[in-house]
């Protein structure tokens, strides 16, 4: 029933797909982080119109399953590009690589979740810290970069860890749009003999180890920073 040999032989092949899983995860994290920072700035500065629109967008993304978002982007992005072409933009809706769709969907997802966490981490920094920076003559920008952001970063790490691990796990859905990451590779190997339980067990082991490693690394970084700043929990 469960073919141990097949599971063992498949393991290294599935492991070989890990780089793509990580590429999507890191790509989405970086895109999400950059966008999230812009979202946080717009929302904290209460830029009229924009901050409300972003609030709704964030709420929408956080309220819908990533799988559904993936399909909305998958079907919607090409149509959007067609539309933009109609407006005279130089876009090429055909031949949109799957990785671009993955980066878009997962990046937006990360943006929504990260922006909320960054806002919470920002609000958790004692406002007195920023005020003290102003009273010693620092400009608002210097106060933010020198004082607020370093402290915010420490607050952010636990939530960041959760979001990052969720991203790793959620990439297990992108094989639906044709990217051969861990789950996709597991499916391919299985399809020859239609034997799935073995490869899925392999994939499960890889995901658990990956998540464990990254949780460990991030916990260490947090402990280091906390120790360095000696910010009591």
């Amino acid at each position, binding site marked *: 029933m469960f073919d141990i040999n097949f599971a063992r032989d498949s393991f290294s092949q599935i492991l070989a797909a890990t780089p793509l899983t990580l590429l999507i995860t890191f790509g989405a994290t970086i895109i999400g982080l950059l966008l999230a920072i812009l979202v946080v700035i717009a929302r904290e500065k209460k830029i009229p119109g924009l901050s409300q629109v972003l609030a709704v967008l964030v709420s929408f993304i956080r309220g819908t399953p990533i799988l559904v978002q993936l399909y909305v982007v998958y079907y919607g992005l090409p149509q959007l590009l067609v539309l933009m072409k109609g407006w005279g933009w130089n876009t090429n809706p055909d031949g949109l690589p799957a990785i671009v769709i993955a980066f878009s969907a997962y990046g937006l997802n990360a943006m929504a979740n990260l922006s909320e966490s960054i806002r919470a981490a920002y609000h958790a920094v*004692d406002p*007195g*810290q920023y*005020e*003290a*920076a*102003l*009273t*010693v*003559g*620092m*400009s608002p920008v*210097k106060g933010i970069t*020198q*004082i607020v952001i*370093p*402290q915010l970063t420490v607050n952010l790490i636990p939530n960041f860890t959760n979001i990052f691990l969720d991203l790793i796990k959620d990439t297990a859905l992108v094989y639906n749009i044709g990217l051969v990451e861990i789950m996709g590779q597991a499916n391919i190997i299985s399809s020859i003999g239609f034997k799935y339980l073995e490869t899925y067990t392999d994939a499960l082991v890889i995901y658990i180890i990956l998540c464990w490693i990254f949780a460990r690394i991030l916990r260490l970084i947090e402990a280091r920073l906390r120790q*360095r*700043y*000696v*910010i*009591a929990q």
Partner: protein
Amino acid sequence: MLLEVKDLQKQFNGHQVLDGVDLQIHQGEVLVIIGPSGSGKTTLLRNLNFLEHADSGTMHFADQTIDLGKPSKQQVQWVRRHTAMVFQNYNLFKNKTAQQNIAEGLIYGHGVDAKTANQKAAQALKNLGLYDRRHYFPTQLSGGQQQRIGIARATVLKPEVVLFDEPTSALDPELVGTVLKDMQRLAENGQTMVVVTHQMWFARNVASRVAFFADGQIQEIGKPADIFDHPQKQRTKQFLNALADNY
């Protein structure tokens, strides 16, 4: 006259916290402000250096005149650079060491180069006898040490006025003395200071003038002995009696 504020108004959600404050601060004086909790003393200090923005009023400071209702960015930055503040909860930068706390206002606020700034900070710590703690982070220091560094952080900038908001009220009774002594020394060196405090010893012995603040206005202002021993207004008497009861 170093600094004068006229008809300062400030509301919070329709509640008039500062209701036309007039205040003059003379060069080299120590002005102590006392008054009931929640009356707006902190708010007054925060409006003086634009941590909060007043609804209206005028400020004359050195040779500048500023409309407090709509100060320009330059004016805000200029006032902040010529005043400094000491907070009730110290507010030392948690992610910076003792020495960095003192140096970074010079570096990022006043454009002093890092080397000079660090030398000045180290010297300030030596004067406090805290040089061996220069690489400690705030949470590794006692409240008293933190507040003394907070004062050094403010005074190293050589501000025209230093604003103190209840600098000792978060401290253990034993540690209050060290901080008050630092403040006394500062006063003796001619530093202009505005101090919100309930430390009667300091108000009586160090203050040039004492102001009683209540109901959004300065009710009474004068020499310490006059205010404490011969208060003019009923409101002032009441308050002083309530305070005296505690001791």
